[in-house]
């Protein structure tokens, strides 16, 4: 139950952070496109449980959960959304370009699929330099439609690179269902296996499944068996980009939405903990602690200075 409680804490923290962002987004002070992970926290937390701070993670536009689960600074995240000097890129990158090198979260990028090769390249460096670390690349099922995914996976398999591909299959790319993007017969794990990745799929809303599968895959990767892929079936609760619920638009079947909301990963885990004997007070205390941490992060972000545009010409080239 200890590790479960830890997972719960991590997931709840991400959830509360994202909810706080959503709650304040309409104040128009976080002025950048922001993709929330609400509903998808189990994948990030379950995967991170097998990673050390030395391991290097890359992600996509929807990166908050991965960043936080990997240990990225909450204060620097919130400040970044506010476009402040204290943000993780000093306001240059915004929500879609997060980094915390001290936590081994290298970067997220805003072009679908284009951070996947970067993670594979990181793994190439790790292999050639015989480093005791691995790389991880997070992406959505939409990104598997890009040639960049395919080319990267082929090379990772060819060189048996130490890299874990994490595909969060939330069934949608913006408003587009899988049916307009991938053939009905498609299995992402079967495809990944055919490319040469050691691939398995799990219920991505069950953090235990994610953690167990990842542990096994990562063991193989650290062992030198080559790259692997985990497909986490999951669902995003809110709109693709922005703070709101958008099921009034009708692009997702009602029963599908209902099915997945009923399988909210945080609620599921909370129930499990209660069943296992955790007390409601204990969990509430956790929530309270998280709440103050988040309030503090927003407080810091709001009072922080804006970056100075006089520095805009810095860092076009390495100095």
């Amino acid at each position, binding site marked *: 139950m200890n590790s479960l409680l830890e997972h719960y804490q991590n997931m709840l923290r991400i959830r509360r952070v994202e909810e706080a962002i959503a709650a304040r987004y309409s104040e*128009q002070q976080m*002025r*950048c*496109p*922001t993709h929330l992970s609400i509903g998808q926290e189990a994948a990030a937390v379950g995967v991170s449980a097998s990673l050390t701070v030395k391991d290097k993670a890359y992600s996509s536009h929807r990166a908050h959960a991965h960043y936080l689960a990997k240990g990225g600074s909450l204060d620097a995240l919130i400040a970044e959304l506010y*476009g*402040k000097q204290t*943000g993780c*890129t*000093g*306001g*240059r*990158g*915004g*929500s*879609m*370009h997060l980094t915390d090198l001290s936590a081994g979260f290298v970067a997220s*990028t*805003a*072009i*679908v*699929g284009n951070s996947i090769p970067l993670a594979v390249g990181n793994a190439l460096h790790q292999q050639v330099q015989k480093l005791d670390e691995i790389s991880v690349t997070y992406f959505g099922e*939409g*990104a598997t*439609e*890009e*040639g*960049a995914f395919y080319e990267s996976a082929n090379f990772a398999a060819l060189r048996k690179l130490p890299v874990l591909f994490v595909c969060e299959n939330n069934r949608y*790319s*913006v*408003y*587009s269902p899988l049916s*307009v*993007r*991938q053939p009905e017969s498609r299995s992402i794990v079967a495809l990944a296996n055919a490319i040469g990745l050691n691939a398995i799929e799990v219920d991505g809303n069950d953090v235990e499944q994610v953690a167990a599968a990842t542990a096994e895959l990562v063991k193989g990767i650290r062992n030198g068996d080559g790259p692997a892929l985990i497909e986490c079936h999951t669902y995003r609760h809110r709109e693709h*980009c*922005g703070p709101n619920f958008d099921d009034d*638009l*009708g*692009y997702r079947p009602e029963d599908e939405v209902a099915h997945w909301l009923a399988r909210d990963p945080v609620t599921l885990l909370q129930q499990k903990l209660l069943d296992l004997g955790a007390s409601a007070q204990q969990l509430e205390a956790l929530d309270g602690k998280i709440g103050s941490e988040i309030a503090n992060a927003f407080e810091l972000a709001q009072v922080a200075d*804006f*970056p*100075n*545009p006089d520095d*805009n*010409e810095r860092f*076009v080239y390495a100095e």
Partner: protein
Amino acid sequence: MQSNQTTTFAEQINQAQHQAMQDDPAMLAFGLGISDPKGIFGTTTGLAESFGHERVFDMPTAENGMTGIGIGAALAGSRVLMTHQRLDFFLLAMDQLVNNAAKWHYMFNGQMKVPLTIRLIIGRGWGQGPTHAQNLQSWFAHIPGLKVITPSKTDAVAAQLYSAIMDDSPVIFIEHRWLHQQQCETSQIKPLTLRPEPVRVHKTGADYTIVANSYMVLESLIAARKLAELGIDAEVLETAELEPACWQPVYQSVAKTGRLLVCDSAHTSFSVAAEIISSVTERCFGQLKQAPLRLGLPDYPEPTSIALTKHFYPSADSITKKVMMSLQRELPASIQDADEHHSTRPHDVPGEWFKGPF
């Protein structure tokens, strides 16, 4: 807020597509999100409903492959329109665009045609940042075989898009996001079948030639009004087609005014502005009274934070300032600091209608 008499840039783009789909039953339109509830900022709304999901369709996230598929369909006899919500995403498809679409008619000796139009939307502000705000118009203009259209005004955009679609050569159609809500009276709309002018003269003037395209035309026109108040009679021209051979009106204008400022909506170096200045200098050297000037985006990526973009985009004030300074005239206090933003709305949104995030 819209009466029966007015229409928007986005609506006009929408109408041009409807008409083209109707006029050519072999026309296909596709792109990420083209048939989703938001319909690419409203520009594709209703197309799938009217013409069916076989001809109007969403696609996998696979810009390179899908561009090649569009080219192949065009070669086979379809007329193809693709839309990308950001130009930045289309960088994945440069091989198909340049090595296939642009050269095909030429390298197969005129035996096949590529009636393909690619709409690319340029983002700006509200934290679009480094990879959602690039305008690489000079790249496309540099490639023989591609036509590049950069509309700016609601009255002509439908005719421009319609003629691009009906063109049997590949056309890159660059839409600035900040134009979509621009209004105009329906009575002013140019007929779809009117051949669009490659260069549009939006204001005549004797003292100074200002050349701009895309969104910068709007800023230039505001600047021209301010300049008029300051006693400078500026001529404002729009290079709606990026093709030096079509720029005769620009050369004529400079021959008249002897002075030129080119406003570019992309990075300044190795830009369309450089080509315009170089072409003008070649042809009008004797008539130039002073060095032609340019005003474009700085040569670094668009930062995300609102605090960092204040000076990133040239404005009407910075145009006015540049012109006045080149004439060694006093600047009125109101635009002494042209880089300060004077409007009541934040500088990173185009208007009240914009609620973020894209």
